[in-house]
C-alpha cells in the first residue's frame, strides 16, 4: 500500500519535471530571437523532456511488455534526437547561416593565420630596406 504511494509520488515528480522542461523548451522555441538559440531550446525538449516523461510512464506501467516498449522508445529517441538536431545545425551552417555575434570564421586556427602576416611584414620591411639601399 505504501509502495504504490511511493511510486505515485516518484512519477508525479518525474511528470512535473518533464512538463517543466517541455514547457520551457517550447517557450524558448517560440520566443528566442535566433535560429541557433532556438536549436538550444529544441535540444532541451529532445533530451530532458522526453527522458523524464517517459521515465514517469515507465514507473506507472508496472513490469510487463509495455516496459520493454517504453525502454525501446527511450533508447531510440535518445539516439535519434541529437542526431537530427546535429543534422539540422550542420545543414544550416553549410548553407551560410551564422550566429549574430561571430564576425569572422571562429573555427580557423589563429596562430597559423598570424604567422604569415608577420612574415609578410618582415618581407615588406626587407623590401623597403632593399629599396633604401638601392
Amino acid at each position: 500500500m505504501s509502495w504504490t504511494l511511493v511510486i505515485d509520488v516518484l512519477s508525479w515528480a518525474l511528470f512535473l519535471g518533464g512538463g517543466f522542461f517541455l514547457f520551457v523548451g517550447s517557450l524558448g522555441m517560440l520566443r528566442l530571437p535566433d535560429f541557433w538559440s532556438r536549436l538550444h531550446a529544441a535540444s532541451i525538449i529532445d533530451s530532458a523532456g522526453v527522458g523524464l516523461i517517459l521515465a514517469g510512464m515507465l514507473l506507472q506501467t508496472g513490469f510487463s511488455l509495455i516496459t520493454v516498449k517504453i525502454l525501446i522508445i527511450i533508447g531510440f529517441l535518445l539516439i535519434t534526437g541529437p542526431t537530427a538536431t546535429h543534422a539540422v545545425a550542420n545543414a544550416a551552417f553549410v548553407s551560410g547561416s551564422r550566429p549574430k555575434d561571430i564576425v569572422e570564421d571562429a573555427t580557423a586556427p589563429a596562430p597559423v593565420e598570424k604567422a604569415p602576416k608577420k612574415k609578410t611584414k618582415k618581407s615588406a620591411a626587407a623590401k623597403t630596406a632593399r629599396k633604401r639601399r638601392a
Partner: protein
Amino acid sequence: MMFAFITITIFVCMVMIMIRLFAGPTLYDRVLSLNTFGTCTVLFIGTVGLLFGRPDFLDIALLYALINFVGTIAVLKFFRYRRIGDAPEIPETPDIEASQ
C-alpha cells in the same frame, strides 16, 4: 489524473511549437520545429494511450519516432541535393569548402 495533466501540458507545448512552425523565418527553423513537433507527438500518443487504458498505442508511438527521424533526414537531403534518390555528384556549393 497525472496522465491528464501531462497530456494537457504536451498539447499546449505542441500548439506553441506549431506557431513557430508556421512563423519560422528560415527553412531550418521550420525543419527544426517539425522534428521537435514529431518528438512531442510521440510523447502525446504514449500518454493518451496510458490515459484511456489502451497501452497498445505505444507501438504507434515507436513507429512514429522511426518515421519522424527518417523524414527529417529526407527533407534535409532533399533541400541539399534537390533529389531524394541517388545523388551521384555533389553540386557546386562553395560554402562547404569554406566551412571546412
